[in-house]
Structure formats: C-alpha cells, structure tokens
C-alpha cells in the first residue's frame, strides 16, 4: 500500500485541479476565438489543409473578379457589334437606293453619299469603343484607339486573356482586323469607296453591296463568338459559386467550433472542476487530529 503523505496529497490535488483548470481554459480559448485550431499544433494536418483551402478560396475569389471583368469587356464588344450591325443595315439600304437611282440624280446621290460619310464616322467611333480606357477591338495596344481617323487599324493581335478558373484562361480579344477586315480593304475603306462610287460611279455599287454583305457576315460571326465566350464564362461562374460554398463549408468544418458540442464539453469540464475543488477542500481538512481530545 502506498503511504499518503502531506506532500503527495497536496501535490496530487494540485495536479488534478490544474489539469481540470487548463482543460477549461483551453475550451474557453476555443470558444472565445470561435476556432478549433488556435495554433498550428492543435492540428498539424488541419492547419496545412486550412492553409490550402484558404489559398484556393482566395484564388476562386480572384477568378470571380476576373470573370466579372471579362463579362464587362464582352458586353462592350457585344453592344458595339450590335450597334454596328444595325448601322450597316442602314448603309446597305443607302447603297440600294443609290443603285436604284443610278446616275440619274446627282443631287440625291450626293445626299446619300453624305449619309454614308456620316455613318462611317459613327461606325469608326463604335469600332473604337473602349472598356476601362482600353479599345476593345485593339488587342493589347497601349494607344487609346483601335482605328485611327483615316480608318486604318492601329491595334495589334495580342491576346487579352482572363483567367476564370484553374487552367482556364479565355482570350477575350476580338481583333479589329477580324471583325472589320485588313487595312486597305477594311470596312472603313469600303465605306469610303461606297461614298465615292455614289458620287461618281454608281455602277460600282453592286460590287460594294456584296463586299458589305460579306463584311456583315464577319461581324455577326465575331458577335456570336463573343456571345459564346460570355455564356462559357457565366457557366464557369456558376460552377465557381458552388465551389466556393463547398470550400467555405469545408474550411468552417475544419477551423470553426461546433458550439453545441463545445457547450456540452464546457459544462462537463466545469462540473469536473467543481467536483475536484469540493472534494479537495473537504478531504484535506480531515486528519486524526480532529478526533483526538
């Protein structure tokens, strides 16, 4: 049998009380911080996983910002091309009028030619539409415009990529040359040609009409391409939203405390501590001396 001595009894009581108190303090720390992992050693694997999840979440957040930016860019492209298409319809009817009138009425053709010139100026401005200060048809040009005043392309064919997901960089660029044609034979050259033909050579308008139609097809193509990219980005965004919710709930499972569970643990730790205090106080008061006269 082990002897119980003054020292061993008090030491044992103290060690027990301290263990209980430190368990209570630990729980308290977790509850006040709201986190299960208050320092890396609380759960080494949990910490590393949490770091990874946090980094993924941040990245996802950035992907979403990129996607929003990309949608803004594509909206600008789409609305510009849409306006351009409707303007081209008007130009087409002007050309048809010119063909019908033929050489007969120079005054009326001059009026048509002036309308075409007006339309050219307005189309040039549409082709220079910009998003956040960058011409959307100018590729990666550092300049303010994609087409200069003479109507020749001054942009480049660089890619304008937005990363909207892991390994998912989407090139938003709609190079001006693809939509409006190469320098020398682009839309603005064509319009200039039409205006000249209206004034001087209405017989050339037939060929102009065909060129105008093929240009129109190219523009519609680019518009539908931009629309397809828009849809693709939207679907990526939806997936990203779902992903984000999943990541957040994983992170919360890992990092945050379960309040109900904590409440039960605190109650039981508290009860144990109180019981230890009460018995220590009672037991250490008794000795043989109490019973000797």
């Amino acid at each position, binding site marked *: 049998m082990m002897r119980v001595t*003054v020292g061993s009894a008090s030491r044992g009581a103290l060690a027990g009380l301290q263990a209980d108190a430190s368990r209570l303090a630990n729980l308290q720390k977790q509850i006040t911080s709201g986190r299960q992992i208050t*320092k890396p050693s609380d759960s080494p694997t949990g910490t590393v996983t949490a770091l990874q999840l946090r980094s993924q979440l*941040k990245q996802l957040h950035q992907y979403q910002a*990129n996607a929003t930016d990309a949608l803004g860019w594509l909206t600008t492209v789409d609305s510009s091309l849409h306006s351009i298409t409707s303007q081209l319809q008007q130009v087409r009817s002007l050309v048809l009028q010119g063909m019908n009138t033929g050489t007969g009425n120079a005054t009326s053709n001059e009026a048509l030619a002036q309308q075409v010139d007006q339309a050219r100026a307005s189309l040039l401005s549409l082709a220079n539409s910009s998003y956040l200060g*960058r011409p959307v048809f100018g590729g990666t040009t550092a300049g303010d415009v994609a087409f200069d005043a003479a109507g020749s392309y001054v942009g480049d064919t660089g890619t304008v*990529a937005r990363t909207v997901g892991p390994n998912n960089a989407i090139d938003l660029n709609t190079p001006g040359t693809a939509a409006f044609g190469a320098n020398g034979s682009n839309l603005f050259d064509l319009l200039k040609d039409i205006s000249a033909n209206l004034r001087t050579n209405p017989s050339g308008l037939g060929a102009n009409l065909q060129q105008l139609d093929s240009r129109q097809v190219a523009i519609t193509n680019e518009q539908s391409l931009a629309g397809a990219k828009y849809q693709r980005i939207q679907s990526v965004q939806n997936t990203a939203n779902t992903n984000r919710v999943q990541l957040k709930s994983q992170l919360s499972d890992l990092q945050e405390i379960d309040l109900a569970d904590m409440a039960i643990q605190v109650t039981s730790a508290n009860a144990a501590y109180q019981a230890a205090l009460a018995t220590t106080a009672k037991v250490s008061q008794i000795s043989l*001396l109490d019973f000797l006269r």
Partner: protein
Amino acid sequence: MTSAFSGLTNALAALNVQRYGLEVTGQNIANANTPGYTRQRAELAAVGPATGVAALYATQHPNGSVTVSGTTRLNDPMIDVRARTEHGDNGYRQTTATVLSSVETLFDEPSDHGLAEQLNDFWNSWAAVANNPGDLAARNVVLQKAASLATSLNQSSANLDRLTQSVAQQATAATLEINTAAAALAQLNGEIAVATASGTNTNALADQRDSLLMQLADLTGAQTTVLANGTATVSIGGQNLVASTTATTVSLSPANQILVGGTPAGPAGGELQGLVDSLTTALPGYAAQLDAVAAALANTVNAGQTGGYDLAGNPGGPLFAGSTAATLSVAVTNPAALAASGAAGGNLDGSVALGMSQLGGSNSGADAAYRSLVGTLATDVQRAVQQASIQQAVTNSVDELAQSSAGVSFDEETTNLLTYQRAYQASSRVLTTVDEILDTLISHTGRVGL
C-alpha cells in the same frame, strides 16, 4: 542479581528514549512542508545483558533497558535514483516543448493576417494587373503587397533571431546555475565525509545533498552515485562534474556544445541539453526553412519578371532583392517598371502578370515552402508537447512514490505522538513504582511491629 537501583536507571533511560522519539516526531511535523525534507525515525533497541561476562557475575534476566540505536532517514534510494533519471528526462522534454511552443507563436496560422494570406493577396494583386496592365493603381498595389511580404519575412526572421538569442542566454544562465550547484555539492561532500567519519548525524546534510542532486538532474540529467560515506559523485555525458570535494565547471563552446571542465561531454539530458539541442538543431532548422520560403519567393517572382516587359516595353528586372528572410526587400519603386507583358514594344499584354498570379499554386513555390514550414513546426510542437506531458506524468508518479516513502503523514505522526506519550507516561509510572519499592525497603524495613 540485579542492583536494586537498576530499575531507576532503566526507567530513566526509557523516559529519555521516549522523549527522543517525541522530539523526532516533532521534527517531522515541523518539517512536513519543508522542500527536500525526508522523514526520520528514532530507531529504538532493547538493551540486553552485557556479553562476555563470567556467569557468576552475569544477570540471569535481561535488565530491561532501552536505547536509541540511531535516527534513520526513511527515503528509498532506488526510487530516488529513478526520480533523478525521470527528472533529467523531464527537464529536457519540458524545455524542448517550451522553446518549440515559443517558435509556434511566431507563425500565427491559419489566420487572416499570416504570411500565407499575404502570399495569396500578393498573387491576387498580380491578377488585377493582368486584367488591366495599364492601370498604375493596380501595379502600385502589387508593390505594396510585395513590400508587406518582404517586411513580414524580415520580421519573422528577426523574431526567430531574438528567440534564438534568448534561448542562448537561458543556456548560459543554466550553466551558471549548474556550476553553483556543483560547487555547493562539492563543499557539502566534504562536510558529509567529516560528519560520517566522526559519527555525527548526517540526515540534514543528506537532505541538502539530495536536493542539490535533484537540481543537477533537472538541469543536466546528470548521472549520480552516492557512495557509502554519503558523498555523491556526479557526471554529465560521461564527464565527471563533481567527485568528492572537487567540482569542475560546465560551459558552452561557441558551437553550443556542452563542455565539462573544457572537455566535450556526450549527450546528456535535462534543461541544458534541451536548450542546446534547440540552439543547434531546431531553431536553425526553422530559420533555414524560412529562408527557403524567401528564396523560393524571390526566385520564382524574379524569374517571371526578367522574362517579361514593363509598361514602357523594356525588359523587366528582378522585383525582389536578397534571397534570405532577413535580407529580402523590394527592388522596384516605379510601378510602371513591373513586367506584365510577354512581348516587347510597350503594349498592354498581361500574360506575364497572369503567369505571376498563378505562381501561388506551384508545388515548388513560396506557398508550398511556407506550408511545409508550418506543417513541420506544427508536427514538431505537437510531438514535443505530447512527449512533455507524458514525461511530466511519469515524473509526477515517481515523485509521488518518493514522497510516499519520504514524506510526512500527519496521521502517522499523530499516532507516533500518542505512542511515545503513552510510553513516557508508563515509564514514569515504572519510575514511581520502583521509587515506592525503594521507599518501602529503605524507610520501612526493620520496623516490623513498630
């Protein structure tokens, strides 16, 4: 035949002996809370007839006296040895756990403001530049994030350095404490040797000796031998620290090796070894890992930058200068000088910035290096703390065993008090009785019929 007066002498001896027993009990009670005190017991022995006396003169009966044959320290030497071993191990484990826990506080993860989150922010700031390479504000954000990353790494490194210095100071303080204890033990050894030779009670000295031995065990995990004359020999890692009345000194070499009297000692234990191991292995290890994070950051970022072109179309230069956590700094001050474009000529291409924004996902980049640092540290701390708490439990149980044999129990002492008190009362009754007999003999003999 015994002398008529021998009864008086015997009773007196009994009174003295019981009173001595009471005194020892009183001493035990008085020292119940004295650290290092070992309870003592008065050893009583019956006094028999003198031997070697011719039968003619010998008494036929034992003369019934009692004597104190000694005062024993009631410790258990085997448990004391075990306690010292466990204390040495405990000192080592507790110190290691404390140092590692201090390192852990320097890396507050996972959190919203730790280095991992700063890295994430840095990479994301590049994505903003990729989206809008011409925006100087976005480029400025990159520079700010880079600067805060560099500052954080510098601070972590400085904090680790400060911690290392404070551990080194603790180690020096521990050697001083060891040397003081060793010198005191050597002096005590001399006193014990003299006291043993002259037959004086050495119990109090032995208590002091055991306290010093325990202190040395805590500090160094020293090996101890207690010799027959009560003196103790102490060695650390195979080198003698205290032998008889000579004590050598413990010191640390510049490379933080434990030297005993100038000679390198083998692996010891205790606090000192814990501090030394932290200084030579753990702390430099974490510093190297932190440097690896800084180097990975500088290398990946600078490699990306030098492959690109800045806003004006010139080839990009390194963003970070320095390749250790302490020396890392931002080398670029002009936001336009950040390389975002993959093609020369001053365009708004963002491909290089895009590449930079994805460096965080690399398995060989700074993020992975940092995660590995935090993971290693967390595992190390967890293991050290677990080992320390296990060793603490073992040490506590051995201490309890030692206390169980050496500690004072009030119930027991009170019982002894009663026993000696009763024996004293009975002995004095014997004295009274003998006195009455003698009174009868002396005063009333020959007065028959008077």
